[in-house]
Each structure stands twice: as C-alpha cells, then as structure tokens.
C-alpha cells in the first residue's frame, strides 16, 4: 500500500527525511538506535516480558496458597517469589511500560520528530534492561532477595538477610531509578520545549499532561528511594554503616519514611499515565472534546502534589503521634477528591458524547468498575482505626491490586488496543479483544475480591501457608482459580496481538478518526514522524478541517533538525540538530552496569564503574560539529 500523503505535505522530500532519520540497518544499527519509536517499543516489549515473569510468580504463589498447609513451595522459596513478584511488577513492569508508552507517543502527540535527548533516551533503556537482567541473573545463581519488595530493615539488613539477594534487589533499584530519571528529564524537556507551534499548554493532549506530571513526580520521588535503598540499606549491608541498624543507634523507621516518601508517589507514577490514556481513548471514542479539560489537568497536578503528602498511611501501625496521623488521614482522603473529579468528567464526556463500545472502551469500563472499588477501599485505609485492622492483611493486597491492575493495567490494555494500529499499522481484532477483556475482568474479580474478605477474617499477607480451621480455605481456592482465569485472559490477549500483527486489517493513518496529532502520522510512523511539522490551532488538531491546518516549512531534511518552541505558548524559538545514532549510550550503560553489578561483591568495582562510565561519556560527548543553529 502506498502511503497516503496529504496534499500539503506533497513538497516534503520524504526520501531524504527517511535517510536522515532512519535507524541504521543490521545488528550494530539496531544496538545504536536512538529514535523514540525504537526505544519506546523496546521499553514496552521488555516490560511486557517482565509482566509475564511477574505473572508466573503470582501463579506459583496462588498455587501454594490454594489449600492450607500446602507444601508446593517451601517457606524460603515462597518468600523469594513474592519479593520478586512485587519487585518485578513495580520496578520492571509498571513504571517502565508507562515510560515506554510515553516515549513512543508523546513526540507523536505534540508533533515533533524525536525526544529531546535521544542518546540519553537510549542510555535509559539500556540501564533498565541491565537492571532487569542483573536481578534475574543473580536469581539464576540463587542470589534471590527474600525480604519483600519494600525490604524493611532490620530484616533486610546484613544480620537477618545474609547472602547477596537483598544487595541485588537494592542495586537493581539503582538501575531502574537511573533509567526512570533519564526518561523523566527526557519527557519534561520534550513536552515543554518541543511542542508543535501553536500547541500552547492549554491545547496539550491529556496524555501529555499526565506524562508531564508523572515525570516531575519521578524527579522528586526517585531520590527518596535512592536514599532508602542505596544510601541506607546497601551501605549498611556492604560498607558497614549503621543508618538503619537499631543495635548501633540507627533507626529502622527512618528507612520506612524514606522508602514510602518514594513508594506512595510511585503508585501515582504508575497510574497517572493510565489516566491520560483513559482521557485519550474516551475523547476519540465519544466523538466529543473531553469534558472539563481544565478540571482534568488540575486534578492531575493535584494528584501529583497530594501524592507526596500521604506516605505515612503505610506506617499507621508503627505508633506515630496521633496529631500527625490525623494530618495524613486528611491527606489520604483528599486524594479521593482529585480522583473523583476525573471520574465525574469522564462520565460527563460519555454522557454527552457518542460512545463507541470498542474493545478499548471495554477496558475503560473495566477500569471504571475496578478502580472505583479500589478507591473506596482506599478511603477505608485512610482511616486510622480501619487501617490498623486491615493493614498488612489480604484486604490491603486486594486494595492495591484493585487500584494498580484496575487503575493502571486495564487502561494500559485499553490504550494498547487503541494505539495498536499506530504501533503496527494493523487493526487489532475487536472480538478477540472483547473476549480477552471479559476473561480478564471476571478472572480479576474472582481472584482479588475474595481477598477483601480474607483480610477481614484475619489472613495476614506474606504468609507462605496457613492452618486449616480459620475459615480461609474456600476464599483462597477461589482466588487461585481466578488467577488461572487471568492467565487465560492474558494468553488470549497475547494471541490476539500476535495474530493481528500478522493478519490484522490494514489500519491506515487514522482508523478511529482520533483527535490528536499521532493519528496524522503514518501507521506505523515513519522514522521522522511527520513529513512537515504540524502547526496546531486547537485542542483537538485532527478534528480541525485539513484546510485550516498549517504546517511548518523551512526545516532542513538532510540533518536531524527539530523545532524548539517556547514553554507556555509554543511559539517557534530555534531549530536544534540532534546527534545521529550511536553505540555510546549502550557502551556507557554497559560500563556503569558492570561496575554497579560488581560493587555488591566488592567496593572496588565502583572505581571500575566510574572508569568505564567515564570512558563511555567521553565517547558519547566527543565534539563533532555545531549542534544548534539560531533562527
């Protein structure tokens, strides 16, 4: 099929553009890719692999808990598996997959050719991959963390967790945190400085807003976990410091504060992009501009701020002063307001629009059901007396799976169905999509709804077995059966993706008649995204008649030029030339990776990390030619 080039792009020299922007062929070319589409796709595919691994771990746990006093897994193995499950899902799946979606979609949505720092982007991905491989590589040699995904000292300290498992856990966080910070910086600069002319902040798509807020949250949250896992825990373990060792005057609660100051915003870091996806899906599928755009944006920003004020509700049972606890109850309740406003706006959008119930919209409705229920149990957990009963039980397990799977995974699957034509050029099978939705929806509720009950009748979390006679048997068996339904739903989804990728109907540029700029690019997008950069005149640029859509001309096509615009109103400012593909980000990540991995065994490896990393950075920044041209 020959690509359809709208009339106004007829004069663009697409051959030159393609030559300029393409990723070099061959294996070396593949390794040196710096285009946002390549990197974004890699993030998404890698993250889905980790989702699969984390899912298998979940199934193993459910098998062990299917009946009382089961001996399928030993106590030690079970503790390792739930630690890996939480760690994998939080650090290696949920955050990276959202970042991947952002890296892939944001430049398309704001009408530019690439992210702001392409090499940093590639470096971030390689660090993430290295972190994941490092954790599972250590697991392969039986250095498996077993202190839970938040690794409270003293249990995670050198005395009670000997061996290298917890070191591997803490150092893996270093990798993913570097990666997350790279993406955050990347997206903030891209969104603030590279929007298409005319796309003032108040015309920016909701998904970009959500990625912007999320990226700022990453910048504020990640240093806290660095302090917890690296400065406190890893130093205590490998260098003999005593930050959180009570025997030497350290304070284990200090770790909890630092960890949850990151850990709670982390949930919103995962879930804000999902909210952006819901807004995108609904706008297109209701055929109307999203209702309450300013309210939605303010709610996202509000979520971003409030999320930093409620970490202590993870620590109510530690016996903090009551006056402080009351403050954190109020803050935890408050986040329900900003989340509620968004739900109301979406309902209003659907009410007044013309809803098309595609597979993507099915997932949005799944989100509305599951996430709202998770929100309700969240309000219960904000109340200290209720939290003291529900804390650390299966009630909490149910709650956070409702908000994370309902709030992030269902919208992500919806978004995946929605953008699948853009990713692959083919439509995803709608019927199979809806079938997978129903299996996942029923499976999810079968698994996690009984856990609310289990928690209230006393089942604590992280137990590798339980005695009969406590009334927990049937609910646990039901949950295990549900887990296999989720597996079935997941396999249906994978089958659908693989099948539609090969045999799906050709989608064309804009199968949904979407409202935002990504639907103007080809499916899948050319490496340069747009033949001519678009100029935006409304909040829904693609719903503006073609004749009223100006374009940017005068950009050079024979080098990687992007247009830099002003932060607020996106007036053109200057052109910037991006560096070509290169192996240096990979080599730098490799250098740092070897050093960081080795450093859990001996401190000297840090010197190696510095040396190799420095060599990598010298190669990376070796001066070439002037990068910026004034206009």
């Amino acid at each position, binding site marked *: 099929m020959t690509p359809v080039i709208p009339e106004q792009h007829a004069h663009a020299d697409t051959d030159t553009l393609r030559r300029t922007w393409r990723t070099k062929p061959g294996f070396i070319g593949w390794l040196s890719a710096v285009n946002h589409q390549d990197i974004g796709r890699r993030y998404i595919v890698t993250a889905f692999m980790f989702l699969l691994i984390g899912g298998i771990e979940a199934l193993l746990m459910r098998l062990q808990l299917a009946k009382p006093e089961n001996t399928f897994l030993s*106590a030690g193995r079970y503790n390792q598996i739930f630690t890996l499950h939480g760690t994998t899902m939080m650090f290696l799946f949920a955050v990276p997959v959202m970042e991947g979606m952002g890296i892939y979609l944001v430049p398309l949505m704001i009408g530019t050719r690439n992210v702001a720092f392409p090499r940093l982007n590639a470096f971030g991905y390689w660090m993430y991959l290295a972190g994941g491989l490092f954790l599972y590589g250590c697991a392969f040699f039986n250095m498996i963390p077993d202190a839970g995904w938040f690794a409270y000292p*003293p249990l995670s300290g050198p005395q009670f967790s000997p061996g290298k498992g917890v070191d591997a856990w803490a150092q893996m966080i270093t990798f993913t945190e570097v990666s997350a910070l790279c993406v955050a910086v990347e997206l903030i600069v891209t969104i603030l400085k590279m929007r298409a002319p005319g796309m003032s902040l108040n015309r920016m798509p909701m998904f970009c807003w959500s990625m912007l807020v999320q990226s700022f949250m990453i910048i504020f949250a990640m240093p806290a976990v660095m302090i917890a896992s690296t400065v406190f825990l890893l130093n205590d373990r490998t260098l003999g410091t005593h930050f959180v060792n009570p025997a030497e005057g350290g304070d284990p609660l200090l770790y909890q504060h630092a960890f949850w100051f990151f850990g709670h915003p982390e949930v919103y870091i995962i879930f804000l992009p999902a909210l952006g996806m819901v807004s995108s899906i609904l706008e297109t599928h209701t055929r109307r501009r999203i209702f309450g755009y300013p309210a939605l944006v303010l709610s996202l920003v509000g979520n971003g701020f409030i999320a930093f004020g409620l970490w202590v509700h993870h620590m109510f*049972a530690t*016996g903090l002063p009551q006056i402080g606890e009351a403050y954190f109850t109020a803050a935890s309740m408050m986040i329900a307001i900003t989340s509620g406003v968004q739900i109301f706006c979406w309902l209003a959008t659907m009410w*007044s629009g013309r809803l098309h119930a595609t597979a993507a919209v099915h997932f949005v409705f799944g989100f509305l059901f599951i996430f709202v229920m998770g929100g309700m149990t969240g309000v*219960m957990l904000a*109340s200290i*007396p209720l939290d003291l009963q*529900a804390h650390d039980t299966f009630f909490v397990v149910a709650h956070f799976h409702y908000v994370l799977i309902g709030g992030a995974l269902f919208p992500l699957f919806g978004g995946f169905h929605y953008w699948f034509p853009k990713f692959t050029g083919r439509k995803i099978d709608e019927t199979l999509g809806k079938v997978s939705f129903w299996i996942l929806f029923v499976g999810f509720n079968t698994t996690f709804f009984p856990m609310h009950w289990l928690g209230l009748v006393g089942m604590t979390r992280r*137990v590798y077995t339980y005695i009969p006679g406590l009334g927990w048997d049937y609910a646990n068996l039901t949950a295990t059966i549900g887990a296999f339904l989720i597996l079935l739903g997941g396999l249906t989804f994978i089958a659908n993706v693989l099948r539609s990728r090969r045999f799906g109907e050709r989608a064309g540029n804009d199968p949904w008649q979407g409202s935002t700029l990504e639907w103007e690019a080809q499916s899948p997008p050319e490496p340069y995204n747009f033949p001519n950069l678009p100029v935006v005149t409304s909040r829904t640029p693609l719903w503006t008649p073609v004749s009223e859509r100006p374009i940017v001309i005068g950009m050079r096509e024979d080098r990687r030029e992007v247009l830099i615009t002003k932060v607020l109103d996106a007036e053109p400012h200057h052109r910037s030339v991006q560096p070509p593909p290169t192996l240096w980000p990979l080599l730098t990540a490799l250098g740092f990776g070897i050093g960081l991995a080795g450093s859990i065994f001996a401190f000297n490896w840090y010197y190696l990390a510095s040396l190799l990393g420095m060599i990598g950075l010298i190669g990376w920044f070796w001066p070439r030619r002037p990068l910026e041209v004034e206009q």
Partner: protein
Amino acid sequence: MTQSVWHASGYNAAQIRELAIFFGLLLTAIFLIVEVVALLVLRRRHRGIQQEPLEASHQPGSGTESKLRTVVGISTAVTVLILFGLTILSVSVGKAVTASVAPAGSLKVEVTGKQWWWAVRYASDDASRVLLTANEIHIPVGRPIAMKGEAEDVIHSFWVPSLQGKRDLIPGRTTQEWLQASQPGEYRGQCAEFCGLQHAHMAFWVIAEPADQFQAWFDHQLQPAVEPTDEETQRGRAIFLRSACSLCHAIRGTDAAAQVGPDLTHFGSRRTIAAGTLPNNKGNLAGWIADPQTIKPGTHMATVAIQSAEMQPLIDYLESLK
C-alpha cells in the same frame, strides 16, 4: 477459632467494626451510584446521536455543557463534604480507640516479638509478682490492658483482630496500645509484619477470663514448676536439665534459667506449641522436639539429640508442667 475483625470483643474492636460497617455501607452505596451512572451512559450511547450535532463541532451545545458543569460541580462538592465528614468521624473514633495510653486501672502486659515467637511479661512494681510466659496471654474480662511492645531482632506486628488493631513491634523502640475484652473467649492473634522465614507460623492466643479465674491462673503461673511426682517424670526432668534443652529454656524451680527460648515453667498448661503452630499434646511435642526443622523450617529451636528411650520421659515431664 476466632481471628476475625467481625468477631469483635471489647470496646476497641467493636468501635472499629462499627466504623468499618458504616464506611463499608456508605462507600458501597457511592460505588453503586457511580456504576449505575456508568451503565446508563452505556445504554444512552445511541441516543446521543440524535441529540447533538457532534460530528461537525465535536462539542455539545452550550446548554448541555452548562448542565454537565452543574452536575459535575455538585458531585464534586458532595464528594468533598462526604470525605470531610469521614475524616472527622475517623479521627474522633480513632482518638479513643487507637490511643497509646490506656485508661486508668489497666493491667500492664509487655510483649516482645522474636523470630518467631512471643515473649510475654506481666509487669508489676512488686518484683515477686512479675510473670514471664510465652505465646499465650491471659487477660481479665472488662479490664483495660496496657500493651507495651518491643522487638528483639526484626520488626513484628502484634495483632489480635477480635480485640484491637495492629501495633508494630520495632527494635530499639517501645510502642504502646491498649485493648479490652468484653466477653470471655479465646482469641487468636498472628504476627502481621513480614519477619522472615517463619512469619506464617508466629501466632499466639489471648485468653480472656472472668477476673477471679484470671487471678487464679495468674497466681498459679507465679508458682515455680510443679515437682515431678513419679519416677518417669523425675527422669524426664533430669534429661531436660542435662541435655541442650536447658541452654535455651527456663523452668523456674529448677536450674534451667536461660531466656533464649520460651519460658517453659507452665508449658503443660498452654494450648499450642511452637507459637500456635501445633496443638499441645504429647504426640505433637515428640514430633516438635525430634525434628523442629520439618514442622517449622528455619526455626531457631535447635534439634537436640534425644535418645528414643529418653523421649517419653522428657515429654511426660514437660506435659506435666501444668
């Protein structure tokens, strides 16, 4: 066995249960309203086509928009009011229920969490009335109990759902809460904070008894261990004292005084062994002593080499410590 938030006994747990029911009903109602609206939206989707010329403007008429703004505005305001109310309610109930200072006239009990059992100490100004025991806490019905919590190794969390919410036991700190039982009963509790390999097998019992029964129990527990009466149990005591058992366990009234493992002075009177893992009977005890690592893998209870001929007297002796 009762280990349930619903099976509340006593002031604190009952208050929390009422609050939970109120929260639960109100939030379920709100949830249902949101879902009903969502389903109505789904049913309405074909009617939208006639109502508004969306395809041209992608924006409903200004009348519809302002109506929607009103509805969303009111819903938000109602949300704020409800959450405000719930916050006030929660804080005011919580103030009494989760206070760390117990009401006057309370019985002082100190619990120390250890991997993976509970040391219990009844405090008293009179040193002769301080009682050490393990994994089983007897309390008088109707009297507030001031719980003090400490941890020896890692963080544990003390939780008896029928009586009160959790309180973490943190090394290097002392945490406090209070609870009260309103009916006699046996309430099971369990460690709620992941504390390592045998977190799952770190349970205990709280036995609430009428005041006079409690007093009788307490006075009896203060006594040293009963003297063995027959030859078999006398042999059992000798075996206990000369084997490795006495390196970790104390039996008051004998030379065994170590405080590494649970105090066994009145071991025979307890309901379970190995912190709620097994019912306390001779068969289970023999299994536990012979091979603790199979029953509770990773436990710090040592496998002590006891000859098979010596096992029976040892068990008879321990079970005689009523």
